[in-house]
């Protein structure tokens, strides 16, 4: 995939390290000359120094050759304008932006930004998930060894993948109480299909838990 990253923060280095530069063709546009030169030298990535909200700079970076434009600046307005120009003027297939103000996420999405990343929302969702788990453990008498609450993550080889809850041979005194999927928690019903990556909260009697967990392995 051809990826154009727009960023002036040194955090870009960590992203470039994570992305396999052999698999993806990556280019960078940055206002930060020092950072741009360092990345160009260290990772051999083409870098254009300049303001990416300026169409001449985007054209210098050959923006129309990219499949994905990632804007990771600290200024929401700049991130939005770059993504809009990428789509409207240069027909880039996908755009992703860092949205610093979580109140602006819906507005970015309405204006064609395909993926919005908001740090505050990520942390809030972690806190929310943790508080749900914490709530469950507080509500249930987990000190009483008779009932156990466990979390199971469905991997690619899980036996229950693509099966509906009613198709899983749960033993008596065991149930799937909650599923975390795509950052949201919900209570499953009989027709809920199990998907890879689902985090399932299982509640069971102590002597039934081990057998129940093996159902999901």
């Amino acid at each position: 995939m051809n990826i154009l990253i727009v960023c002036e923060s040194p955090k870009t280095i960590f992203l470039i390290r994570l992305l396999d530069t052999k698999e993806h063709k990556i280019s960078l546009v940055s206002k930060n000359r020092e950072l741009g030169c360092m990345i160009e030298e260290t990772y051999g990535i083409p870098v254009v120094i300049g303001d990416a909200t300026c169409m001449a700079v985007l054209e210098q970076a050959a923006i129309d050759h990219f499949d994905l434009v990632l804007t990771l600046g600290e200024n929401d307005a700049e991130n939005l304008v770059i993504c809009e120009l990428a789509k409207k003027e240069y027909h880039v297939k996908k755009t992703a932006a860092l949205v610093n103000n979580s109140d602006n996420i819906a507005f970015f999405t309405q204006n064609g930004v395909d993926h919005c990343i908001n740090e505050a929302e990520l942390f809030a969702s972690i806190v929310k998930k943790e508080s749900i788990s914490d709530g469950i453990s507080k509500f249930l008498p987990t000190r009483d060894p008779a009932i156990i609450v466990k979390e199971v993550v469905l991997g690619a080889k899980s036996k229950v993948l693509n099966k509906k809850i009613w198709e899983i041979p749960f033993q008596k005194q065991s149930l799937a109480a909650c599923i975390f999927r795509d950052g949201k928690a919900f209570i499953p019903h009989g027709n809920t299909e199990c998907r890879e990556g689902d985090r399932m909260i299982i509640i069971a009697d102590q002597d039934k838990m081990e057998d129940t967990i093996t159902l999901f392995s």
Partner: protein
Amino acid sequence: MSIFHKIPPKHMIVIGCGHFGFPIVESLIEQDYKVTAIDLNAKAFAGIPLSMNALMIEGDGTDPETLEAAGVIGADAVIAATNDDAVNIMISQMVKQKYRVETVIARLYDLSKEKTYSNLGVQVISPVSLFTDACLQNWSMAKGRGMI
């Protein structure tokens, strides 16, 4: 009960009180408009004439909370006059799409983006274009008078 109703003044919001926005705010206040000025820095409001119809808000014009505090819902016009083109574009789009303000004017230095955003219903004013047009007009008038 009086049969005469005083027409309420039009509400204008000006975002950015720098070299470009400040005179606009001053002029609107002088013309008895109800004006709300927004700027990141409260020092920008120094010198704005005191008026019952003027409200100054220190805040980020791209933040919906700030815009709502400024009374964007029901405002007659919004002028995005910061010194950052991207900020002016974002404010204009937000005000037009989310708050349905009819008249939205954005100051834009970089004319290459003018067409993109004019198509979205945002009225763009470029100081560069205004200056160029004024120069050309003066030049043609002087030429007509045989001065050139």
